């Protein structure tokens, strides 16, 4: 059997996708959707040298690698003061104890386990999507409303939670309906969850301790690992089925079923959700012809009619990218662990804030900058009043909910 030239083109595109995934995964604010849009714009030229399938494989491998690496900046950046460590995200708790690499390793195990499970269970998910989606579709708006109410009512500070959710929802409604605004999600999400978190960490006297860089052998009870991976599949399934539902919201929902995961279990879950979400969005693309994220929209626009052979090819690319993503995440996790206590943390955070602020007018114009400032102001509130940041996801949940209800 002669190796097909298409195989080489696909492998090359896959490797380039891995490189792009490293950049999007490690750079806060640079999302895969942005690269996918740029690729679509350049596709008339690229298609002269690459087949359509290779471009689609580039997007798939970039997206998968991104899900392995995006936990690294979220663990190593934005950590608050150690004195308030009990109220912070588990990833930051590991960092403040000097166990940043262990946290990265847990998310890698979660992502890799999730990738393998999702590929193995893919036929089952296809069947579930085929037969369950009509039911979900009929009550989609009400389901999202129930999720929103649940998220607010479970919070100890319900009034603040409701206020943040509604303000974020109103902001989302305005931003997503602004005529002529490009990349509206960039300033919106960067402000609510990126710049605001970074600014809060600057306000605290954050001291990052030297990180443990020897091979951290992690002891996770089998039961916890199985529960975390099962929760990841469930959460990823929810995000793939319910538009507007983010990974953090899905994690909160699935934690209601599988309680007491502990920090190790939570990190496994966190690592798995985005990977599962991406792989299962291939199932919704195959069965429903609906794209659930920007990358899949780009794939859909490139490949006219996605069939079973395309999906099998994408799943194979997913496996290659997942394996490479795991090794890369481990390597970058070690590099970050060595550097984080040596670099000037405040200067690093200011640098990232300046990068995000500088990028906003380029991607979304001056209106985008106004949105970034507004969203940042709103994003600061949850940390100030000590409630969950996840209520900020109202910025997407409310517009989607209203689309289905009205």
């Amino acid at each position, binding site marked *: *059997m002669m*190796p*097909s*030239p*298409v*195989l080489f083109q*696909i*492998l090359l595109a896959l490797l380039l996708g891995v490189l792009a995934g490293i950049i999007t995964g490690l750079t806060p604010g640079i999302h895969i959707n942005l690269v996918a849009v740029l690729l679509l714009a350049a596709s*008339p030229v690229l*298609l*002269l040298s690459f*087949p*359509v399938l290779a471009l689609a494989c580039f997007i798939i491998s970039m997206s998968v690698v991104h899900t392995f690496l995006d936990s690294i900046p979220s663990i190593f950046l934005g950590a608050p003061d150690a004195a308030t460590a009990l109220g912070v995200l588990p990833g930051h708790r590991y960092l403040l104890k000097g166990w940043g690499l262990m946290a990265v*390793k847990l998310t*890698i*195990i979660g992502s*890799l386990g999730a*990738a*393998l499970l999702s590929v193995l269970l893919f036929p089952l998910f296809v069947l579930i999507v085929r037969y369950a989606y009509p039911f979900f579709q009929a009550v989609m708006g009400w389901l999202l409303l129930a999720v929103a109410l649940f998220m607010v009512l479970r919070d100890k500070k319900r009034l603040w939670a409701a206020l943040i959710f509604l303000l974020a929802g109103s902001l989302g409604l305005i931003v997503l309906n602004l005529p002529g605004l490009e990349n509206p999600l960039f300033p919106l999400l960067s402000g609510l969850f990126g710049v605001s978190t970074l600014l809060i960490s600057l306000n605290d006297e954050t001291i990052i301790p030297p990180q443990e860089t020897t*091979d951290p*052998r*992690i*002891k*996770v009870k089998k039961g916890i690992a199985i529960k975390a991976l099962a929760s990841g599949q469930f959460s990823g399934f929810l995000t793939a089925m319910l538009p507007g539902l983010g990974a953090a919201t899905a994690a909160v929902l699935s934690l209601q079923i599988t309680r007491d995961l502990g920090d190790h279990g939570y990190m496994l879950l966190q690592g798995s959700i985005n990977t599962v979400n991406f792989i299962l969005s291939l199932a919704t693309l195959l069965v429903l012809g609906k794209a659930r994220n920007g990358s899949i929209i780009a794939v859909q626009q490139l490949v006219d009619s996605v069939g079973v*052979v395309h999906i*099998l*090819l994408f*799943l*194979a*690319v*997913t*496996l*290659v*990218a*997942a*394996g*490479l*993503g*795991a*090794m890369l995440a*481990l390597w970058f996790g070690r590099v970050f662990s060595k550097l984080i206590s040596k670099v000037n943390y405040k200067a690093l955070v200011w640098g990232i804030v300046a990068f995000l602020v500088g990028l906003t007018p380029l991607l979304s114009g001056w209106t985008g900058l106004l949105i970034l400032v507004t969203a940042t102001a709103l994003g600061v509130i949850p940390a100030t009043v000590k409630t969950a940041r996840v209520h900020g996801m109202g910025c997407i949940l409310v517009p989607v909910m209203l689309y289905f209800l009205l």
Partner: protein
Amino acid sequence: MLSERVLIALGLSVSLVGILALCLILWLSELPVAQLTVVAAAKDGEMVRVTGLVERVRHIKNDSITLLTVSEKVTRNAIVFDAVNVSEGMTLDMEGEIQLYDGEPELVVRRLETR
């Protein structure tokens, strides 16, 4: 439970399995090369892969469409919705969908390689 060495080995294994699966899928899904006569006999919408000698090239609509006349033992028309750099005398390997145009079957080229 899991050392880094085990994790790296797992990552490598998963990548290798993916590459093998990729080769297998591409090999099994490749269309066999058919005679040009299938263009006339194929149904509307059917995918075919053919090889032929370029007899005539025309670029229309600001080079956004390329019209080809290719021959083997018979001559057939093909259309590429792009400006492609081919010239008469070249042998092409083309993959695409049969579509009826003015009642005549025509190959709408999706993939094109020169030999």
